[in-house]
């Protein structure tokens, strides 16, 4: 009888230990997965910055300063109905001026906030990077640059 009791005690201890290690393993795995997810997000952002950086420095989009985008050039490119997308190997490309929520059309340009140069149908998550967006401001009679964003999705191999 006493021997059975000891075996039972030992079994309980073994089960408790297995549960403890299982919990620790779950905790550790979730912690590692969380950090891997952060690293993936950061690398996606980095890749987005690289792609957008290349696009910003093309003569077709380049503004009056290094790394700036010309709002007028973006509008002219948008009138080509996305044909530039094949040349630049992008599925989606848009330029935004932050803080202005109006989409640009023939009626709203230039006092609008978003120009879609290459309209993607299903582009998923676009890669994005900040850029200064510059245009001639008639009210102050000089070139004005505002904080903007370039959104791009690439990968047409």
């Amino acid at each position, binding site marked *: 009888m006493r021997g059975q009791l000891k075996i039972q005690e030992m079994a309980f*201890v073994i089960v408790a*230990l297995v549960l*403890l*290690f299982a919990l*620790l393993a779950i905790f*550790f795995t979730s912690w590692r997965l969380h*950090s891997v997810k*952060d*690293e993936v997000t*950061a*690398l996606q*952002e*980095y890749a*987005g*910055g690289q792609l*957008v*950086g290349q696009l910003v420095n093309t003569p077709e989009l380049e503004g009056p*300063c*290094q*790394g*700036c985008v010309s709002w007028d050039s973006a509008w002219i490119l948008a009138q080509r109905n996305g044909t530039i997308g094949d040349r630049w190997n992008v599925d989606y490309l848009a330029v935004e001026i*932050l*803080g202005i929520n109006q989409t640009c059309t023939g009626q709203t340009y230039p006092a609008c906030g978003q120009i879609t140069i290459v309209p993607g149908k299903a582009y998923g998550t676009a890669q*994005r*990077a*900040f*850029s*200064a967006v*510059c245009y001639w401001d008639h009210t*102050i009679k*000089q*070139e*004005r*640059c*505002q*904080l*903007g964003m370039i959104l791009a999705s690439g990968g047409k191999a």
Partner: protein
Amino acid sequence: MKRGQEEIVGFGVLLVVLAIVGVILLGMYLRSPVPESGLFPEGGSFLDALPHVTSTCALQGDRFISAHELMVQCVTQPGKQCASEQRVCSVLNGTLTQAIHTAFPIGSRIQGYRFTLQEGDEPATLILSEGNCSTYRGDQRFLPNTRYSLSLFVCG
């Protein structure tokens, strides 16, 4: 060995095993990358774009100067005034705060930020911060053609 002694030995062994596991986990945690040094490419492109943004400060015959020029003016001649009679540093504060709030609105994704402008290793000339964070990720850039550096760290 009596039954009570056996149980005490078993308890002791259990404590030793737990301590070993704890030390291993602590070691792994301490060796993991520090979040402050995390990549934040959006911060880099923000710092690249920010100096080109046109400010609301008019100098030199009503020409509105860029944030780059405004930062230099604030560091070298902090008492100088814009055409609107506001001090350059005050306008710079407003321009930078607005840009940061527009780019990184504080909410679910971003819970706080810390922006600094400093010359070399000197103490920061300008510090803007909001939110209460323990760990940050961010980036740093030199202001072109100057000795000043900008840094932006966010948390969330």
